Structures are given as C-alpha cells and as structure tokens.
C-alpha cells in the first residue's frame, strides 16, 4: 500500500509542472498590461514603465517564470498588486467558502444520487426507473443559476425559511454556516446528483451481469446483501472515478452559484482579480486550484486502493 501511495504521489510531479507552465503562459500572453490598468488611463508613460519595473514585468519572460516558480516551490506565491497581502492568504480567505460549498454539494449529491441510481438499476425498465431517470435528466438540464434563483424564490422569499443570500463562516457556528450554505449547496448538488445517479445506475447494471453476483445469490445471501455488498461496492469504483473527474465542473459550478448567492468565494476572487489585472493572484489561484484538483484525484486513487485490492496489490 505504501509503495502504491508513494508511486501515486511521484506521478503528480510532472502534472503540476505542466500546470505551472500553462498558468504562467496564459496570464503573461493575454492582452492587457497590469501596470496601465492599475494606474488608470491618465497615467504617464514614465509612471507605467516604472511600475512595470517594480512588478518585474520588464525582465525576460523565462526569468520571470523561473523566479515565480522558485518562490512558488517555497510556498510564496507573491503578493496581491491590489491589496498588498500575500496571495496565499488571499486565496485561503476566499477558498474556504468555496470548499465548504463544494463539499456540502458533493455530500448532498452522493447521498441523493447513490440510492437513486441503485433503485433505478434494480427497477430497470419500470416506472420507478423512468421517474428517477427523468429527474436526473431535469437535474442535468436545469442550469444551476436558475435552480438557485428558484430555490431562493421559494424557500427564502416565499416561505422565508432560509436566508436569501450571503455567507456565514464556520466561526459563526455550524448551524448558521449550513443555513446559509443549504440552498447554494442544493443548487450545485442537483447537477452533481443527476450525474452520479446516471453513473450509479449504469455501474450497477454492469456489475449485476458479473458471475460473482450470481454466485452471491447461489450462496443464499439475502437480496440486500447481494445488492449492497456484492454489487454496490463493486459499482463504487466507476462512481468514485466520476466524482474525481467532475471535481473541476463542481468548482466551476460553484463559481456560478456563488455569484447568485453572493458568496465571497474563489469565483469572486478570480473575477475581481481579472478585472484588476492582479496577475499574481490569478496565477496563484489557478495554480492552487489545479493543485487541489490533483490532490483530490490522489485522494480518490487512495480510496480506490482501499476499495479494490487489485489496485492495492498490483504494482
């Protein structure tokens, strides 16, 4: 197992290297000079040249990249041009709400979707299957911002059960934190649930065809044991895979939902930073999100190792 973990971690290094190059290139090759944006339209050419010097923008691009990467490796992603605070601390401030939202949405998605997918598979071709799969289709078709607006209208404005928008950090108590997050998490989790339902159903149907499911029944196991222990657990492997792969769409969706619910998350940070040409923040944020993506996938690979002995034992 340890060997497997080490191997998985080492394989991430080149991925992160490529990400670093791409992030840097994107920011530096895109039009718009940070110095002139920061100083405004009335700035003199001299002022602009001076600020560019201070920002290190006049050095050759490879040199800029090398020093950025060198600092990044020591955990220093520079300081925000706009606020003067370190990029890492800006990132963490805005990352917490997004992470809370993504995790909450993912949990809702999984809790709703896995049972739905299992029942759809067990009642394949029956009305139950049809109803669940139509629900999933709706989930995929309704954009999350629309879903968010409808939820706000009904639960916040009409029923007045939950806050309309905004965000309360965890420090204000878990109850309040979740109260604010519930509607955004449902809007975001709905699509996720739709996706996972389909995958769960397909994975269950495929696993059911395996000879070992027949063996399990031939042993005289109860239906519940056959379904949960000998079908669902095996189906979890493709389900996990989808959860890992959709992490980026989940974050992208979070950005939209944050906008609807006015949550100060990564979405806001990125939009604001792009407007301000705050390139250290943009670079740093994208790099850290990519890093997060890679970490999540590592984590999922490790769960594979726990679920599936073939992964753990075959090096």
């Amino acid at each position, binding site marked *: 197992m340890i060997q497997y973990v080490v191997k998985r971690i080492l394989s991430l290094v080149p991925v992160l290297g490529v990400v670093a190059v791409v992030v840097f290139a994107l920011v530096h090759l895109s039009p718009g000079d940070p110095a002139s944006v920061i100083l405004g339209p009335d700035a003199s050419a001299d002022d602009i040249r001076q600020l560019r010097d201070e920002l290190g923008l006049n050095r050759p691009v490879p040199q800029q990249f090398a020093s950025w990467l060198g600092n990044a490796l020591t955990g220093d992603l520079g300081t925000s041009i706009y606020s003067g605070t370190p990029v890492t601390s800006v990132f963490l401030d805005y990352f917490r709400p997004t992470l809370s939202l993504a995790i909450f949405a993912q949990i809702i998605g999984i809790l709703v979707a896995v049972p739905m997918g299992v029942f759809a598979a067990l009642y394949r*071709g029956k009305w139950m299957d049809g109803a669940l799969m139509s629900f999933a289709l709706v989930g995929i078709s309704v954009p999350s911002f629309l879903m968010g607006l409808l939820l706000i209208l009904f639960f916040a404005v009409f029923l007045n059960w939950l806050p309309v928008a905004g965000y309360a950090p965890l420090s204000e108590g878990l109850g309040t934190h979740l109260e604010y997050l519930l509607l955004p998490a449902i809007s975001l989790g709905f699509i996720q649930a739709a996706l996972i339902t389909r995958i769960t159903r397909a994975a269950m149907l495929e696993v059911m065809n*395996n*000879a*070992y499911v*027949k*063996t*399990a*029944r*031939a*042993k*005289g*196991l*109860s*239906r519940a*044991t056959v379904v949960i222990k*000998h079908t669902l*657990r*095996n189906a979890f492997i493709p389900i996990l895979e989808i959860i890992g792969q959709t992490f980026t769409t989940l974050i992208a969706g979070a950005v939209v939902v944050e906008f609807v619910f006015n949550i100060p998350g990564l979405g806001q940070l990125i939009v604001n930073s792009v407007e301000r040409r705050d390139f250290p923040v943009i670079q740093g944020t994208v790099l850290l999100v990519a890093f997060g993506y890679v970490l999540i996938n590592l984590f999922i690979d490790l769960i594979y190792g726990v*679920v*599936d*002995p*073939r992964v753990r*034992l*075959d090096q």
Partner: protein
Amino acid sequence: MSASPIIDIRNLRTHFHTEKGRVTAVDDVSFHVGRNEVLGVVGESGCGKSVTSEAIMQLLNPEITDFEGEILFDGENLLALDEARLARIRGNDISMIFQDTTSSLNPLYTVGDQIIEALQAHGRQSRQEAARTALEMVKATGIPSPEKRLSEYPHELSGGMRQRIMIAMALVCRPRLLIADEPTTALDVTTQAQILDLIMQMKAELDMAVVFITHDIGVVAEICDRVAVMYLGQVIEDSTVESLFDAPLHPYTRGLMQAMPTIESDPAEDLYTIRGRVPSLFDVPTGCRFAERCPYATGKCRAEAPTLEAATDGHKVRCWHWKAIAAGEMTESEAELQAG
C-alpha cells in the same frame, strides 16, 4: 436408489420474454436424480443446460422468465416458493458451481471472507467458528497452504485454485445436491482431471447427489451414474451410463460419441462432427428437432415430433426410428454421402 429422488423435474418449461418475442429455452424437460446419484446432463452449447440448472436454483430473472411444470426438491416444488424460502435452500441444501473461474468470485473480498459469508448466511456460527469450518473445507479441497489462501484475493489464485475455492464455498454448508455447470470447461486438461476427482471425492464424503453438466460426453462416462442428453431444450435420451455407452439409441447421442476424441484417434485426422448447426429458438422445427441434422431422418421425422419413450427399463429415447436404427435396418445414407 429406490428411495424417492432428491430432485424430480417434471415437464419443466422455461420461457424468456425477449425483445424479439417469447422463446422457450427449456421445453418439457423431465428428469430426476436419486440421493447420492450423479446425473450427467450433456449437450452442445445452447441446448438449455444452464437454463435448466438455474431454473432449479431459481436464479433466472423472474421479470423475463415464465415457468411451467414442477421442480420437486425433496418433495417441495421450488417453483412455488417465495424468495426468502429459496434463499434458505440455496447454498444450504442445493449448491451450484459455475464454468467461469475468472469472475465467479467477487474481486473485492478475500476468498476466506466469501466462504465464511456462505456459512454465516445459513448458520448461527460465530465468525471464528465459521473461519475454522472454512479452513477445514479448503484443506479438504487439497489446496496447498490453505491458511494463506484464505487471506488472499481471487486474482491472486490460479483458475484451478479458484475452482477449488468455489467448490469449498459451495459445499461448506454440506448441501444434499450439487449442481456443477461445466466446472472444468475453462481449465486445462490436468486441472480438469483434478477437479473431477475432487468433486467425486466430496460427493462420497458428504453423501450428496450431483447434477454434472458438461458438453463433453467423455467426462460423463468417467463419473456419472445416469445421463440425460439434451438437444435444443429437450431431453432426447435418458439412461444409465452403462446402457448409454453400450447402446446409444438416439442418432444425436451416437453423433456426440463419434465426435469424442479417443486415445487411438489420429490427431492429424479431423474428428467427426455432426453436420449442420443447432436451430435458433425462434425457429424451432415442428417435427423432430434434430431432423435437419439427422442422417436417418424421414418425412415423418420432419412432420411429427416424437415423444420421450421407454426403450428398455431405465433407458428412454425421443426418436421415431430408434428400433430400426438399433437393429441396423436403417443406414446412414446421407451421412456417407456427406463424408464422400
């Protein structure tokens, strides 16, 4: 063997609802197996052997399957039982082993867990007791270093070892009937022989009956007491092994025997094969189902379906002309023509 049979199948029909319509995969099959008896069920691939055995275990999807007839296990009709009662019989009174050795065990659990699970599904044994029983059973199958094997996962074992584990798992609750559906087909010749020996040894130890399904009539001669030969969903000959190998009555059975490789047969020479192919279930002949492929077929064969009749005591055959063929009054005219 005069006592009532352990399993008595009476006029079993199994229909599947498919997208293209209803098919009858098993059509009026009757056979019985005495306590402690080994019945061989032989026939080419697709003739309904697996469907029959899974009908006994009630493993077929009830949504698309209809049954007619009776499957009496120890006097109780399995077709009339509810799922809970069936679950108590499966693995406890009737067990089954399968052809596929690569995927018949769940890859996510150790083989030990999977055997213990079978025990605990039926007994009130504690996990420790169950683990001990499982170990004894695995030892009995002759696997080398059994303790170690129990903590291994299926993919760490060879095909032969997995089949031994399947046998241990099937027999750990000491069932009264074992259904072995082509258990050696996926194995190499040496392992095949070992697995056959193991099944016979276990049969003697546990005092159980065996339904041994195979497409290899040679295996039948070695281990079975009685044989049912199936063709396109029907039993076409049912006899003791001695009587069948002494004097096979049905042209299909004769064909299977001729197609069997023997030690004397020259490997360079092509083996005899029965000409033609098994008809589709959507296109079942109105007369004798074997007529199209039969070297003795007459107009009557093509028009009218024969019934399974008793030829001698304990030897039944489904053929219009068995008497004439046995007496040598009919010749394989067309077959010779074919060979020439």
